[in-house]
């Protein structure tokens, strides 16, 4: 683990992204927050990144509709599996 506290915007936004998945380490979060104190651009990016996460959580959820295989499809599948057993 690198001990430098001052990181580039690239590193800061990478940590911000990791944090969206709750996978940033404590040290990384500290570095990110130090960076955000002095960098407005990354501040804006972070805000938008959170928004992006919200949007993705909202719209990229798996559909709840029940998809079913038809009986014919199931029978066809059974036949194929039987053939395999031989």
């Amino acid at each position, binding site marked *: 683990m690198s001990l430098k506290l001052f990181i580039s915007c690239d590193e800061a936004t990478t940590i911000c992204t990791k944090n969206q998945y709750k996978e940033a380490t404590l040290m990384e979060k500290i570095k990110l927050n130090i960076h955000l104190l002095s960098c407005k651009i990354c501040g804006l990016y972070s805000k*938008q990144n959170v928004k992006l996460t919200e949007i993705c959580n909202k719209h990229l959820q798996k559909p709840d509709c029940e998809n079913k295989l038809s009986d014919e499809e199931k029978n066809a599948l059974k036949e194929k599996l039987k053939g395999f057993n031989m």
Partner: protein
Amino acid sequence: MTEAKKHTLDPSKWVDSHSDYLFNYTITRVDSQELAKDIVQETFFSGLKAMKNFRGQAAERTWLISILKRKIIDHYRKINSARGKAEVKVNFYEEGDKKGSWIEERVPQQWGNEAEKNIENTELKGTLDGCIENLPEKYRTVFLLKNVQQYETEEICNELGITASNLWVIIHRARHQLRKCMEDNWFAK
């Protein structure tokens, strides 16, 4: 003392007991019904082949799902190597002296306030899908595995043969492009 219950496999009931569940699981993770059907079928085949390795520690369905997950990743890996060659890399950061600082014209812009309320909007989903569709294949694969499938970081790394820092660089870039695309096509409008 009672022994922990050992699970057993009964392939003759697989289709009736599990095919809908597996199909549902797959359809939300790949684009087409046909493909989902094929993957479910392959899963059953692989299951039959691997039956002797089943040690009864997991329930039948859990065991089948673990095979299925591998099949889905295989599918992603396939489209990855087929189409992922021409990768467009968009840089957001300077190289050289100012390495790691924002490139000026790529700096995020303020998003219109009105957009704030629009998270529920179904048109927004259309824009989002379009933006994801436009991501380079490799970025999209990893992004979707992480975001929609919610695979563990370690799981993705193992299966795709990449390191964790590799994975974060990919997701970072994917989200950068996604953010920019959403900004250009939704929030800035």
